[in-house]
Structure formats: C-alpha cells, structure tokens
C-alpha cells in the first residue's frame, strides 16, 4: 500500500505537487491520471525517495522508501524506460540492478524471458526500439517480484499485443493481491486497465474513485429515452429527481436517475417507450471534463482557476458519498 499525506513539491516557484493525500490499495489496479505536467512523475519520484517532498509524507507499506531494508524486493518501479546506458547489454543492465538489490542472478534470465527479451539479452541497449526499452524497464520493475509496483506511462511505445500483455499482467498481479499504481494521460487505456483512479490536475487531487463511478458521474453519462409521449414523461422524470434535456423529436436525455427508475416511472403512468438506453461517457470524456480547468490554465497561462477545480472535485466527492 502507498500512502501520501499532504504531499507537496515545489521546484523553485513551480508548484508541481500540491497537498496530495491519497492511498493506493492492494488487490486492484489504481490509475494515476492527469494531463501533461500535472505532477504524476514528480509524485512517483517522491514515493521512491528520489525527490524530497517540500512538505508532507509518503510511505510504502508503512515505511519511507529510504528505510526499506530490501527496496527492490518490496517495490518495483518503471520511471523512464529510456534511462539506460546505451553501451551496456540488457543482461548487464539487469544484472547490476539485481546485484545491488540482493536478487539472485538467475532472476535476470527469468525476467528477460518473461518480457520476451531473451534473444536480445546480450545486445547493447542503445540499439533497442521504443517498445524493447519499455519491456526492459518493466523487466527491471519485476526483478524483485515485489508486492508493490509503480509504472509511469508503461504502455508508451508498446504495440497492441504488448499493451494487451501488460494489461493482463497488471490484472493478474492485482488479483494476486499486489498494489499496482499506473500513471497515464491516455484515459482510454486506463478505462480498460484500472479499477480505481486518482485524477490530478496542476498537482492537486481532483478525483479519487472507482473507474465505474467516475464515468457514471460525468455529465456526459445519460440515459437516452425515445417516447411518443416525451412531453408528458419529462416533468414526471424531473419530479423523480432527474435532469432532463430534450433532444430531437420525441427524444429525452436524462441524467441523475437510472434506466430502471425511468422505465418504472413510464410504466406506472402508462407511457409507451420506444427506446431506453443508458449511454456511458468514456473515461476520456469524463477526464476531459474534470481536468478542463487545469488544461486551460496551462494553455493560456492565465491566473489559476482554483475554485473551478475545487468545485468539480467537491461535486464529484459529494455525489459519491450521497
């Protein structure tokens, strides 16, 4: 389990991470989402004891990373796959890490095999493709067979087969009870990989909830209703607690109540329905909505619109607890 408390990082005047408090639970895949420059990598570097927090604390399994007795056997990490010495072979690249971490040599061959890199084990890393670098980075993370794994943008450069493999690996590891923390700005990817997401924008936590919920709560998730008596139905749905907007002829877009309630309301009032279909917003859309303010701020460089982000966050969390 990874736990942060008021975690804050300033680089000079840049506030990269701002009062982050969260827990990453074992047994599930937790996505760490945010637009470019949101502070994902900075947070991960602080988890690993590489960057010192300006304020706040972060622990892994209850301890500060630097106090772990056998760190690579407790936490595996992929930060930047390109951070390798181009003149060293893949095998040696993993060997020096294994030696430093107290991991037996045979494990190097095992992880190379797992990642399909056995054939290029003796080749210089400098000649590797983007995808091979990524695999080598994942191999490093798995060296110590650790119960906690951190991946910063792990699918960058992987082909579809590689992405499927990585996704399945995360799921399997989560099922084994490990803690999996994966960052990405590719929402569509996270939608299929993560069970839970932490969304950050400009260093601040915007949302912390199950993936299913984040898409459900998005304004873009709605139920489409087609009925010849749409005019009659709309006020009834509003009375039942829905927000209703009218679309094309006979079409209603309903948010706030689910399809079951709509169907029952219609039935008990003798209204015929021609279509009743829940439309779920993609995580992508939900994410865009959540981080819009953060992105806009970055793009035009205006004064921070903090209230908007906090508003969104508050709405989301209050809806969640409701």
């Amino acid at each position: 389990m990874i736990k942060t408390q008021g975690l804050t990082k300033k680089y000079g005047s840049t506030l990269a991470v701002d009062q982050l408090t969260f827990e990453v639970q074992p047994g599930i895949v937790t996505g760490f989402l945010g637009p470019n420059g949101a502070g994902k990598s900075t947070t991960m570097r602080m988890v690993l004891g590489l960057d010192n927090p300006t304020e706040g604390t972060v622990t892994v399994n209850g301890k500060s990373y630097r106090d772990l007795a056998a760190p690579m056997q407790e936490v595996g990490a992929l930060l930047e796959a390109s951070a390798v010495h181009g003149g060293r072979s893949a095998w040696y690249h993993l060997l020096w890490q294994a030696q430093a971490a107290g991991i037996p040599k045979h494990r190097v061959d095992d992880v190379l095999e797992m990642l399909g890199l056995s054939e290029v084990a003796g080749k210089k890393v400098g000649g590797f493709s983007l995808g091979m670098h990524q695999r080598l980075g994942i191999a490093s993370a798995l060296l110590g067979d650790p119960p906690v794994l951190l991946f910063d943008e792990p699918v960058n450069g992987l082909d579809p087969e590689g992405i499927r493999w990585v996704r399945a690996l995360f799921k399997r590891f989560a099922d084994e009870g490990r803690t999996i923390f994966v960052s990405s700005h590719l929402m569509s990817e996270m939608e299929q990989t993560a069970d839970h997401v932490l969304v950050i924008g400009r260093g601040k936590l915007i949302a912390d909830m199950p993936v299913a919920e984040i898409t459900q709560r998005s304004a873009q998730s709605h139920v489409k209703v087609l009925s010849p008596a749409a005019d009659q139905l709309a006020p009834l749905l509003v009375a039942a607690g829905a927000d209703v907007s009218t679309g094309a002829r006979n079409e209603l877009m309903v948010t706030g109540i689910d399809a079951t309630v709509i169907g029952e309301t219609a039935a008990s009032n003798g209204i015929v329905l021609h279509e009743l279909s829940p439309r779920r917003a993609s995580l992508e859309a939900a994410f865009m909505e959540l981080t819009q303010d953060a992105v806009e701020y970055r793009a035009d460089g205006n004064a921070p619109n903090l209230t908007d982000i906090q508003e969104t966050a508050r709405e989301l969390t209050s809806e969640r607890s409701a």
Partner: protein
Amino acid sequence: MTVTSAQSRPLGGARQPGFGSVLASEWTKLRSVRSTWIIIVLTITLSIGFSALIALVQGVTFDDWGPQEQAVFDPLINSTSGLLFGLILLIVLGVISVTSEYSSGTIRTTFIATPKRLRVLAAKTLIVGLLGIIIAAIIMPAMIFVSQMIFGAYGMETVSAGDEGVMRLILSFIFAGGLIYTLIPLAIGFILRGAASAITLSIGLFFLPWMLAPLLPNWVQENIIRFLPDLAMDSLGGIIAADSAMYLSQTPAIVTILAWLVGSVAVAAFLLKRRDA
C-alpha cells in the same frame, strides 16, 4: 471491491542487500561498458608510449645537445614525459564513472535499488580509487623502465630502482596520484553532474596552477599553490625541489592530499544526500 492484503513472496535466493551488494553492482556497471576498457587501455598505452617516444627523441638528438644541457639531464624526471596523457585519462575515468549515470538517467535506477545514497558514493570511491592505484602501479614503473632502456641504449645517464628518489617518485605517484586523479574528479562529477564541466574543472584544478605558478608572486606559491593537490603530490614525489617556495615536506604533503580527498568526497556526500536525484 475485495481487498486482499499484499504479502511479499520471498524470492528464491534473495537476501537483504548490504554494502557488498553495492560494490558488486558498481563493479558490474563499470566493467560492462566498453568505454571503461578503452580509457584504461589508452591510459596505459599513451603514457608508456609517449614516454618512450620522447625518450627516443632525446636519445637520438642527445649528441646535438650542449654540454650544459647534457650535464643537467635528469633521467628520472625525463622518463615520465607521457604521464600527462595518463593523468588526463584518469580524470576522465573518475568523472564519467559518475556523470555517465546522470547523462543516461541510470542514476535514478541506482538510487531506487540503493536508496542509501552514501553507499553508492562509497562503493564508487572504493572501486575507482583502487582502479586508479592499479593503473598507476602499471604505468609508473613501466614508463621509467622503458625510458631507462632507451637512455641506456644511447649511452645517456640512467637510474635504477635502488637509486635515490626513484622509489619515492614511483610510490607517491602510485598512491597519491592514483587516488587524487580519480577521486577528486569523481567527487566533482557528483557535484556538477555533467561530464564536460566536471572534466574542465578537474583539468583546471590539476594543471592550471602548474602553468601559472611561475608567473605568480612568491606568497601565492607559498600560501595557496603548494597546497593544491597536484603540487602536494609533486612535493611528495620529489619533483618539486626542497628549496622551492612551492615545496611541502612529507607529512604536510600527505595531510594536504588526504584533506583534498576527504574534503571533495565529503562535499559530494553532503550534496548527494540533500539534492533530488
């Protein structure tokens, strides 16, 4: 959502890493890149080769020298003409053993594997320092031996191991030279984190005072220059004459050299602990 607690499965044969693990890892890093071996081979061949070449040129032209020049010819000092190349390459070895980690980004992987950063500094210091001593122990006697053979062949004056000053020069250059030319640059590498700047600063520190010293007033030589690491080593090795303003006697020279070694590594350690990786 079911949350099972994460239990760590002991990996067959895995153990808690200690300082020995870091030593093994750092040695693997160094020996697994070709550049290390290229630098070592160049250090040895260039210093011995150039010393031999200069000795040969001196031998061939010796008869053309004036009697005064022939009389003051020092066969010991003149057999280390190629040492400059070796020393520059030792500096490069010390610097890049650190800066290659910063330029490639492996320094973060290193500190993920070994979050106790001072262990990494200590392991690199030990390995690179030992390597410096070994290389110096190869080139010093070899340069002198080869040059004496050449001088002898041309009927010039020669020295042998038992002669006064010979062992003093060899030993002080092996130990003081092998250490200061690798470890001060290594520490500077950690401090500046870039190869170009660290090599420039190191070369400036070691060679600039030598070139500037004759132009500087006596009190600068006496109070500053002679306490610089390269000058202290030259005093120790007997290259600087005992009556020179830049001369330091044995004990203060050794203390000065140790102070430079400890001081530079201590600054590196201080910054390493404080800074973000």
